[in-house]
């Protein structure tokens, strides 16, 4: 009976209920999205690099180095000498190195010059290696390995020929048309910037920057050593033992033959969080305020309806309804509206994530899961429900009081 009453009563006030529902829908959606974004951004960034002990690059901010070398965001301020890579490779505590050379693009996707060590040692997520969906590492000068998203959104397949341009951006005025690349491998999706990267060899990066005639000469003579780069952007370093991390970091920072800086990825990521923590808090605060406003709206709606409902409540009292029943009826209506709004908000946000996930990953490098449900999210929704009950208690007590002393006749 209570369920039927709640339903009929809500339906009978559909205009005000709809407006209250919409305002709750907007605020709960906001709250849910902010929470989802917050947890997912952290997750998305944290999974980007794993198993790398040091990132070595030109002296700049720790955060900056991390951003351009791993997240492919912004431009490197300076390069380091190729000899420094050789120095690191020879170092006794170093297990492996991955040189990174950035600065070129292909149709809006970054081109990364590296070595085949990248495919062997680069790890993301929970120390997962990157894996090939199709094809292989590069074996000749103009081989390119595509990230999953590059292949998918540009429709490239194994064996396709593509052209790489100098500079970053979609329409670079200087296209290296003379250096066509050949797709030899396509990687499996990782949910990291790797998916949006084209991987070529370090020599290939040199090749697209030298004069066409010189390049023709080198290819004709097969004297590929001449393509050895003088500079690279950064180096990812894996150590034999983690114990050597700080020793090597100090040695790198004090290296005399080149201006170098080494950062620990974890430390730099932490800096990123500190930067984002206040932003996060602000977003949470704003969405909490918006929710508060809609809950006030809910209270207002219920309170305003109490006047017109005093008659109905008197009728119920006369029929033998206990004051508790009346209290329960009002509370149930509020809970019903909030539950409906919460479920709709989750559906709405999930839907938006499905639609927007491609755009978000391409534009902002955000790899968001479309699965909203997490423990935090459930706790959050539970809190919303509790605060709704809290805000409905006042109108309900008003109804309870009215019911107790209902003046029976007019």
């Amino acid at each position, binding site marked *: 009976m209570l369920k039927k009453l709640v339903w009929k009563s809500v339906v009978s006030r559909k205009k005000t209920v709809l407006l209250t529902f919409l305002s709750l829908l907007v605020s709960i959606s906001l709250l849910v999205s902010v929470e989802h974004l917050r947890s997912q951004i952290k997750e998305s960034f944290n999974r980007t690099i794993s198993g790398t002990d040091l990132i070595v690059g030109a002296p700049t901010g720790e955060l900056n180095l991390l951003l351009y070398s791993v997240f492919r965001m912004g431009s490197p301020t300076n390069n380091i000498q190729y000899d420094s890579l050789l120095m690191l490779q020879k170092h006794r505590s170093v297990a492996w190195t991955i040189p990174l050379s950035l600065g070129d693009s292909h149709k809006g996707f970054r081109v990364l010059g590296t070595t085949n060590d990248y495919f062997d040692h680069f790890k993301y997520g929970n120390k997962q290696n990157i894996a090939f969906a199709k094809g292989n590492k590069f074996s000749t000068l103009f081989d390119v390995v595509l990230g999953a998203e590059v292949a998918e959104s540009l429709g490239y397949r194994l064996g396709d020929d593509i052209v790489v341009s100098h500079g970053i951006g979609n329409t670079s005025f200087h296209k290296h048309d003379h250096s066509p690349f050949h797709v030899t491998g396509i990687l499996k999706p990782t949910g990291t910037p790797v998916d949006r990267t084209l991987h070529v060899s370090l020599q290939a990066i040199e090749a697209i920057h030298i004069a066409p005639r010189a390049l023709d000469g080198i290819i004709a003579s097969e004297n590929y050593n001449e393509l050895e780069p003088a500079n690279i952007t950064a180096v990812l370093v894996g150590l034999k033992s983690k114990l050597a991390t700080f020793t090597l970091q100090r040695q790198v920072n004090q290296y005399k033959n080149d201006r170098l800086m080494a950062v620990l990825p974890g430390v730099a990521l932490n800096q990123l969080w500190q930067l984002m923590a206040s932003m996060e808090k602000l977003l949470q605060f704003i969405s909490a305020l918006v929710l508060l406003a809609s809950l006030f709206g809910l209270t207002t709606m219920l309170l305003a309806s109490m006047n017109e409902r005093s*008659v109905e409540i008197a009728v119920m009292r006369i029929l033998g309804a*206990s004051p508790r029943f009346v209290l329960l009826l009002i509370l149930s209506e509020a809970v019903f509206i909030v539950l409906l709004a919460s479920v709709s908000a989750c559906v709405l946000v999930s839907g938006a994530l499905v639609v927007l996930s491609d755009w978000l990953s391409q534009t902002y490098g955000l790899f968001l899961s479309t699965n909203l449900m997490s423990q935090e999210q459930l706790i959050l929704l539970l809190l919303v429900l509790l605060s709704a009950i809290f805000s409905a208690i006042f109108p309900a007590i008003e109804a309870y009081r009215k019911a107790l002393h209902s003046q*029976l006749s007019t």
Partner: protein
Amino acid sequence: MTSAVQLSSVIFSYPNSNAVFECNDWTLNHGEHVFLQGPSGSGKSTLLGLLSGILKPNSGEVCINGTELSRLSQKQRDKFRAQNLGVVFQQFNLVPYLNTLENLQLATHFANSELDIEGHVKPMLEALKLDESVLTQAISTLSIGQKQRVAIMRACVNTPKVLLVDEPTSALDSQAANGFMGLLLDLCKVNQSSLIFVSHDDSLGSYFERHETLSNIATWSSVDG
């Protein structure tokens, strides 16, 4: 043999009010119908509130069918009201967003009883000259006369021992009012209910053998604090 209604030494005052309602002794027998006349402000609502157990006297006893209401807990009083009393008011007797049938079901819900449509509701519909289609009609689509008849039906759905009726005909013209009275009294006879009929309209008094004036039963006095 207990009476249907027995009031003795009842004193009542509203919270934060100096006015005191007093009723020394009043009895209504089983199956008896009484016409209670009184202008507004003479304590009708208070009396009805006390009889229905919604208001609790400061002192004295209100017995319905041998049960003293003040001995019952709040919850028991609510249940007792649902099972033993039928109330019809001037207006506002029905929950507006439920249809007729659902209003009847609400009444049986609080009385913990089952609604017997074939054996009970349909004969009542016939006695009240209402069409069966009224059951599924929304309350807002009913005429005033229909609403009052549905209100009687709802009040009688649990075959109450006592029926309290307050100015039910004020919204009806005299012809409709006379028709209504006939139907009401017939239904009371069938259910063997005692009837307390409150009105300020003398002309309806002719339907009753026992007449009372409210001011003779109960008095308001002001206590200066």
